[in-house]
C-alpha cells in the first residue's frame, strides 16, 4: 500500500470517520490501529520488526526514567542528612545504570537495523560463501532513528518517558511518516498526536490541498521524469549534465511531494508533523543546503551524533592537545573535520547499504571540511571586496554553485559504483542519441514539466505562512483548490493502463 493507491484513501476515509466519532481521549487508538493496518498492508512481515524496535525503546526509556526519578527522590530526601560525596556516588551509580540500559537498547535497535539492512550487502560485498536474502522493512531507518532520538532525549532528562505503551507505539508507527519521514521528535509530535483534535472543515480542506499538491508533484513531475531519467542514466553521453539537473527536479518533486502528502494527512487529523524542507535549492552553500533539505534527518545527525561526538571526552582531549600544540591553527580543528567526515559517512550509510552511499556521504563531508579549511581565504576575499556579498549577482552565483555541486554529488545516487561514476563523467564529451531522448517524452509532457516547475518555484517562495495562508483564505477556496489540483493531476499525471507508479525514492531508505 502506498500513498497513491486506492486502498490508502479507503483506509483514510474509514479512519477519518471512526476518529471523529470516538471520544477525544480514545482517538489516538484509531490512529494506532490505522498505522498498524497500513504497515501490515504494505507487508505483514514488516510489523514484528517495528514492534520489536518500539518495544525495546519503550521499556528502556521507562527504566531510565525510573532511575532518574529514584535519583531525584534520593537526593531530595537525603540532601540534609548525607554528605555530598555520598549523594554524588549515588548519582553516579544511577547514571551508570541508565548508561547500561541505553547502550543495550542502542545495540539492539541498531543491531536489528544493521542485520536487516546492511548484513546482506556486507555478505555480498565480501563474497561470503553464503548469501542472505531477508526482508527489509520499509522505513526501518526512519522509525529506528525516531525511536533512538526519543531514547537519547529521555536519557538526557529532556522529558519524562511515555508511560502508555500504545501511545508510544503510535509515536513510532504513525502511518503518514512511517515510510519516508519526517523523523519527528517526541516532545514536538506528542503535543498534537494524542490531543484528539475535533473535526474542522477548514483544517480538513488545508490538509486535502496539501495532499493533492504532493500527489501532483509526484505524478506530474517525479513520475513523468522517471522513464526519461532511466534512459539518460542507462546510456552515456553529454546529456548526463541535463540529466543531473532533471534528476534534482525529480528528487525534489518526489521527496517533497511525499512529505506534503504526509503532512497533509497529519493535518486532517490535527497532527502537526515537522516541515522537512525550506527551499533547499536556494541555498548559498552546501552547509546551508543540508539545513534546508531533509531537515529532520540533518538535525537528527547534528543533535544526536555531531554534537555528542564533538563534546565527548576523547574529542575534547584531542582538541585541547592540538590547540596547545598548534596555537589555534588549522590543525587544531582536526577533530571537527574528523567528526564532520564521520557524521557524513554515517549519513551516507543511513541512505542505503552500498559503497556509492558511503562515498556520497564522504564526498559531502569532504566538501564541508574543504569549505571550513578555506573559510579564512573566503573571509579575506570578502574583506577586500566588502560590497560583493550583498549583491544579487553574487547571491545567484552562490546558489548556482551550490546547486551544481549537489548535482555532481548526486552522481553517486544515480550510478552505483565508482567505475560507473567515472565513466559517466568521462562520457560527458561523447555525443548522444538525441532522437531516442526526444521519443521519451512528447512536447506536451515537456510543457507540463515546465509549468509544474514554475508552479513549484512560485509556491515555495511564498512568504507569510505559505501559499495556502496567503491565497486560500476561505474554506470554500480551499476545497475548490483541492478539487482543481485533483482534476489537474487526473488530467496530466503519469498513471493509467500499463503504468506503474514509481515508489517514493526516500521510501527505500
Amino acid at each position: 500500500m502506498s500513498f497513491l493507491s486506492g486502498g490508502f484513501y479507503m483506509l483514510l476515509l474509514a479512519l477519518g470517520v471512526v476518529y471523529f466519532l470516538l471520544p477525544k481521549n480514545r482517538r489516538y487508538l484509531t490512529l494506532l490501529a490505522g498505522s498498524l493496518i497500513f504497515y501490515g498492508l504494505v507487508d505483514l512481515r514488516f510489523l514484528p520488526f517495528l514492534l520489536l524496535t518500539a518495544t525495546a525503546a519503550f521499556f528502556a526509556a521507562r527504566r531510565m526514567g525510573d532511575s532518574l526519578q529514584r535519583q531525584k527522590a534520593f537526593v531530595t530526601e537525603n540532601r540534609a542528612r548525607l554528605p555530598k560525596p555520598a549523594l554524588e556516588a549515588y548519582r553516579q551509580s544511577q547514571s551508570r545504570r541508565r548508561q547500561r540500559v541505553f547502550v543495550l537498547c542502542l545495540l539492539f535497535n541498531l543491531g536489528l537495523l544493521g542485520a536487516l539492512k546492511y548484513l546482506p550487502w556486507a555478505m555480498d560485498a565480501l563474497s561470503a560463501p553464503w548469501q542472505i536474502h531477508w526482508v527489509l522493512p520499509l522505513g526501518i531507518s526512519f522509525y529506528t532513528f525516531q525511536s533512538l532520538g526519543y531514547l537519547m532525549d529521555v536519557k538526557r532528562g529532556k522529558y519524562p518517558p511515555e508511560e502508555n505503551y500504545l501511545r508510544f507505539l503510535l509515536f513510532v508507527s504513525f502511518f503518514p511518516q512511517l515510510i519516508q519521514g519526517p523523523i519527528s521528535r517526541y516532545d514536538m509530535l506528542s503535543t498534537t498526536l494524542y490531543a484528539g483534535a475535533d473535526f474542522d472543515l477548514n483544517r480538513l480542506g488545508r490538509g486535502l490541498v496539501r495532499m493533492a499538491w504532493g500527489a501532483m508533484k509526484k505524478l506530474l513531475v517525479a513520475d513523468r521524469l522517471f522513464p526519461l531519467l532511466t534512459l539518460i542514466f542507462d546510456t552515456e553521453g553529454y546529456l548526463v549534465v541535463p540529466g543531473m539537473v532533471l534528476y534534482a527536479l525529480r528528487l525534489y518533486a518526489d521527496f517533497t511531494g511525499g512529505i506534503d502528502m504526509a503532512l497533509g494527512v497529519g493535518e486532517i487529523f490535527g497532527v502537526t508533523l515537522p516541515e522537512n524542507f525550506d527551499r533547499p535549492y536556494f541555498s548559498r552553500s552546501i552547509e546551508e543546503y543540508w539545513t534546508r533539505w531533509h531537515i529532520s534527518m540533518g538535525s537528527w545527525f547534528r543533535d544526536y551524533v555531531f554534537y555528542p561526538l564533538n563534546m565527548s571526552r576523547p574529542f575534547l582531549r584531542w582538541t585541547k592537545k592540538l590547540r596547545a600544540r598548534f596555537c589555534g591553527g588549522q590543525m587544531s580543528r582536526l577533530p571537527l573535520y574528523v567528526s564532520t567526515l564521520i557524521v557524513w559517512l554515517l549519513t551516507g550509510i543511513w541512505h542505503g547499504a552500498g559503497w556509492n552511499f558511503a562515498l556520497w556521504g564522504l564526498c559531502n563531508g569532504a566538501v564541508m571540511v574543504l569549505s571550513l579549511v578555506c573559510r579564512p581565504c573566503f573571509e579575506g576575499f570578502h574583506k577586500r571586496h566588502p560590497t560583493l556579498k550583498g549583491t544579487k549577482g553574487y547571491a545567484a552565483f552562490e546558489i548556482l554553485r551550490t546547486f551544481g555541486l549537489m548535482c555532481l554529488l548526486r552522481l553517486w545516487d544515480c550510478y552505483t559504483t565508482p567505475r560507473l561514476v567515472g565513466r559517466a563523467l568521462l562520457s560527458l564529451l561523447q555525443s548522444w542519441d538525441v532522437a531516442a531522448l526526444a521519443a521519451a517524452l512528447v512536447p506536451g509532457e515537456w510543457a507540463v514539466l515546465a509549468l509544474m516547475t514554475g508552479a513549484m518555484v512560485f509556491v515555495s517562495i511564498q512568504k507569510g505562512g505559505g501559499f495556502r495562508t496567503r491565497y486560500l483564505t476561505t474554506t470554500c477556496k480551499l476545497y475548490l483548490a483541492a478539487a482543481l489540483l485533483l482534476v489537474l493531476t487526473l488530467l496530466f499525471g503519469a498513471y493509467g493502463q500499463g503504468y506503474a507508479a514509481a515508489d517514493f525514492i526516500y521510501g527505500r531508505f
Partner: protein
Amino acid sequence: MTFEQLLGILSDLHPEVDFEREQHLIDERILTSFDVVAIAAELMEGYGVELTAADILPENFNSARALFALIERLEQGA
C-alpha cells in the same frame, strides 16, 4: 566569565554580527553547527565551563544573553 568576554568570543567568530541585539542566531542560521562546536570548545577550554551535548539546544544559543544565562546556570550548578 563575564558577558563581555562571551561577546569577544562570538565576535571573533562572526565580526559582522551584532551579538548584543541578535535574538535568532540559530533560527536565522547565523551560527552554524560548526560555529556552535567552536564556541563550546572555547568556553570549555578557555573558561572551564562544563558544557555537555544536552546543553546544545537552539534556545541556549539563539542569543548571546541566552548563552550567557546558560553559562551562569552551569557555573552555579558546579
